[in-house]
């Protein structure tokens, strides 16, 4: 009986450790931080993450931002991210999808907004 319980707990612990390998910003390469400065091609102001499309080195990059409630709390709004607005997005490339960046912060009009 105790052995069964112990086995179940150990199994659970093992699975938790395996699962936590994906935690955080795990699918983005934080060693390759870079910045894109471009006019917004397209904006999707939506949950669970907003996205903007920016041109960078002859490709269109999808920039993953934060949940909209977090960005609103920090003073951002959909109206500030209109198509054509020039922004700087600083972040990391995805290790899974080509031309996708997870933004650590974005800068609009010299004002910095943290995404994490």
């Amino acid at each position, binding site marked *: *009986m105790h052995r*069964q319980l112990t086995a179940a707990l150990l199994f*659970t612990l093992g699975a*938790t450790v395996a699962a936590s390998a*994906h935690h955080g910003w795990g699918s983005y390469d934080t060693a390759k931080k870079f910045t894109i400065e471009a006019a917004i091609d397209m904006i*999707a102001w939506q*949950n*669970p993450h907003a996205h903007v499309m920016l041109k960078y080195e002859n490709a269109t990059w999808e920039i993953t931002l934060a*949940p909209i*409630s977090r960005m609103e709390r920090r003073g951002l709004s959909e109206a500030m991210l209109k198509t054509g607005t020039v922004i700087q997005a600083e972040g990391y490339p995805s290790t899974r999808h080509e031309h996708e960046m997870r933004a650590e912060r974005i800068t609009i009009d010299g004002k910095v907004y943290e995404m994490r």
Partner: protein
Amino acid sequence: MWDALLRGLEFSSLGFAARSWTWLYPLANLAHVLGATFLVGAILVFDIQLLRNRFELAASISRTALAVAATGLALLIITGPIMFSAEATAFGRNPIFLAKMVLILAGLANLSLYHWAKRRVFLQPPIPANARFHAAISATVWILAVIAGRSIAYV
């Protein structure tokens, strides 16, 4: 067929609301987590009594445990589709999401098999020998379902 279904859900008014309303997705997420703690917490309390051979204790807590679990299940069933519809095409291809669905089906099958075979288990002793086997399966599968659920966002 599956893809069309996913697209239909993603572009439904539910999917639209889940994406565009500032608080719907975060609240659904919150209630989903709450539902999981209710469901799995109540299941574990019950299963552990079975594993310890405390069948009378298990029977005496079963009403309360069932009420808490049912409340949790209701929260989960209501909020799951809200989050799913926000990104249905991505979720429908996410291997961890599909694994979570398999785990849930396994948990429900385990429950059904046990109850189907031993309907009156707590009213008529002796307790069946396989009660502890089903309890071990139940505890394992439901914990793994929670782990899979939280992992969906990270694969």
